[in-house]
Every structure is written in structure tokens, then in C-alpha cells.
């Protein structure tokens, strides 16, 4: 089934992908895998080495944040919109632990 994935501007400034891509899949994982098959460079932006969603990346299905960040098993259906968005976690005080010091 066809799902529209929309990618945030904050992602598109780093990797050459269109704002909207139609993919197939019955879960968020399947839709994302289909997207990555079309645009392979996206994989390392969205997923870590273990194929988990990066800590500071969010996926919404329509207006709901996905529940299963580990397996991305949340169901999608034809006509859904899936949003890949950077979390607003880059500001002071919420930096990842490794970035507090480079010492």
C-alpha cells in the first residue's frame, strides 16, 4: 500500500532527497526500508548501526508519534502520511551525554 513519507528541511539540507516520497509498506519499518532502498544515503541519517531509530530522530504517522522506536512495528495504511523529523534536542541543556565535553 502506498504511504507518503515527508522529510523535514533539517534533514534535506544534509542529504539530497525530495520533500515527499511515496513508498510501500504495512509498518513504519517497512515504509522506511522502502524509502532507504530508493535513497540509500538516508539510512545512516535516520538509523544507527543496529538499525534502530536514532535517538534524536522522531517518526510520526499522521499526527501520532510512533510507539515502537526499537522495531518500528507501528502499522501504517494506505493514505497515511509518515513524517521523519529531527527532535528539538540540540539545544543547550539537552545535549547528548557525549557532547557535553570533548575533553
Amino acid at each position: 500500500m502506498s504511504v507518503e513519507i515527508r522529510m523535514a528541511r533539517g534533514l534535506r539540507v544534509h542529504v539530497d532527497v525530495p520533500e515527499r516520497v511515496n513508498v510501500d509498506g504495512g509498518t513504519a519499518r517497512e515504509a522506511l526500508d522502502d524509502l532507504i532502498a530508493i535513497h540509500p544515503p538516508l539510512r545512516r541519517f535516520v538509523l544507527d548501526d543496529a538499525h534502530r531509530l536514532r535517538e534524536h530522530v522522531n517518526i510520526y504517522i499522521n499526527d501520532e508519534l510512533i510507539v515502537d522506536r526499537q522495531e518500528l512495528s507501528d502499522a501504517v495504511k494506505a493514505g497515511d502520511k509518515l513524517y521523519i523529523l529531527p527532535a528539538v534536542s540540540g539545544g543547550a541543556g539537552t545535549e547528548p551525554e557525549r557532547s557535553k565535553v570533548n575533553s
Partner: protein
Amino acid sequence: MSEAGLLVSTRKGLLIGRSSADRTSWEWSELQRAGWIVDYTMLDARSGKIWCSASHWQWGPRLHYSTDWGESWVEAGTPAFDDGERSVEAIWMIEPGGRDGLLYAGIMPGAMFRSEDDGESWQEMTSLSQHPYRKYWEPGAAGLVIHHIAVDADNPDRVIVGGSATGIYASYDGGQTWEARNSGIVSDHLPPDMQDTAPCVHSLFAHPMQQGRLWQQNHFGQYRSDDDGRNWIKVSDGLPGEFGFPTAIDPTDPDVCYFIPHDSDQARMPYGGELAVFRTRDAGEHWERLDQGLPQSDFFHTVYRHALGQDSCDPLGLYFGSSGGELYGSIDGGDSWSLLREHLAPITAVRAWQLDNSD
């Protein structure tokens, strides 16, 4: 005609400085890799490539290189774990190996990778990750990191690495096997019978002229070794304190070393807010305080572990940056310093080069 250069990595991008051989006037690039945390940048003199490891809050780590002094960047392969559990968070050091196309990468969390094809593909050196002492490794304030790699230019199979808090390991077979090299290091965070397992290394250099001569800034003191780390000799007497991060050497003199002591692992800044570099010329027997041109009050920043670099000019050039975004330079071996840049983002790494363009 020769040319000098500076690679200044910051938490918000990279600056490239270039100068004629006199090093008195620098031309600076625009901010490269803007918005990315640049952890480390170095020039591989073999290929002429500037390698830049950077990571992004949301989008993870990346490795790029430039062959045109930062005018353009090419994404290389990025080291990645393949066990389905761990994930590379940052690349803290890239180091040329002893033969063409060989590169090493020090990784957070605690691992080392190698590339045989000049950065196109990377393989984890599991021989280090699976060392029997691995169970004793403990993350420092910056995480669990292999952050220093010393390669013997004349013997590509001799590699010495250190990290926080992993201790030091030496290999003489190109990384197939590793020997712990921590004897003599005293660590307050380890029980008496475990002192040689996983000291907290802050920086590590192997001198290119004298086989076996190593210098180490440790969490708990400054050390020298004359036998490739089989035995470490504490050389902190004469320094204001034991804590600190960076080390620099004089490539032409194994007995010369530079440290920037900081006031404890609690304050992490120069003593009394007085910024000073310390130099030994006799292998750590005596230390000179070098502060001419440096702020002597109210300096409350940290100099990170990679943020002190030296060139290979005569007299020696030294450059360091602070977490406050100030870059200082000396072109007389540290006798005097001047402020080269300010208002930068926290400076994570400084590396210098000298190229002879006379051919």
C-alpha cells in the same frame, strides 16, 4: 617555498588556516562543516587529503575528506559496528597507517577500526575490543573512547593506542594481538591489584625519533616511558598539578614535551585562572612555565585532549584552543604566545602541518 597550516576543529565546524613559512599572518577559511560537531581533523601527507570526522545531534557521525583545502568535501565510508548492538557515536581520531591506503580510527564507544582502502570501507579491530581487559574499561566524562593512536612510520605493524578509560595497548603485528602497557601508572579509580588494567589515558604520543619513548597525560599524572610502555615513569614533579588533557612533543627532540595542567578533574581549568603551558627539555626532570602572552587571570576554560598541536618547523610552532573558543599560537617553541582567533565555538582539536611546495 614551504607553507604552514592549521586545522581548528570546533563544536560548530572546522576552520582551516594557511600561512607562509614565517607563520606570522594567517588566512582563514570560511567555517567548514558548519553546524556539525567536528571531533577531529588531520592532514594525511601521503594523499594530501584533509580528513574530518564530525557528528550531528540528530543525524549521527560522518567522515569526510577534502583534496582542495576545504573548498569541497567528499563523504567517505563511516565506521559502523555490525553486531546489531553497538553503534558508532563519534570518531575521535583518524590516523594514517604505515602503508598506503591504511587508516586507523579511534571510536566512541571504545573501539578501533581500520581501513585498507583509504577510508572507503572500515573493519572493527575486534582483537582490541575483545581484549581480556575489556571488562575493566570504564567510560570517562566524555564516554568510553579510544582517542589516541600512535603509528610507527617505519614499522607499520607497531601500533600503540590509548583511551578513556581503557589504558594503553601495544601491537607489533598490525593489530592482530595487543599487550596492555600500563605498568607503573597509579590510578585512584582502580583497586590496588587492578592498577594495570584500565587507567584513564588523556593523551598519548610516541616519539618518532626514539623507539620506545612515549609521553602520556593521564587522569592522575604525567608520564614518560622509555620502553614502549612496558614501564611508566611519573614526571609530575615540578608541575602545578597532575590533571590535564593535551600533550605535545617536539618531533626533533624526544626529551621535549608540553603539558597544560588543569586544576583537578572537578574544576578542569588552569590553576587559579592562570593559563600556562609547561615544557620539559630533559625528559621530565625539570619543567618550565610558559605564559608570556597568555591570560593570567580569570581564564576558566578547558583545553581539550586534542586541542594542542605542534608543527615540524624550526623553531617549533605550537597551537592550542580552549573550550572558550580562543586559539593561541607560538612560533618560538612556546616561549611566547599570541591570540590568533577568539569567539569560536569550543575548540575540540588543533592540528598543524608544514608542507614543502618547492618541488
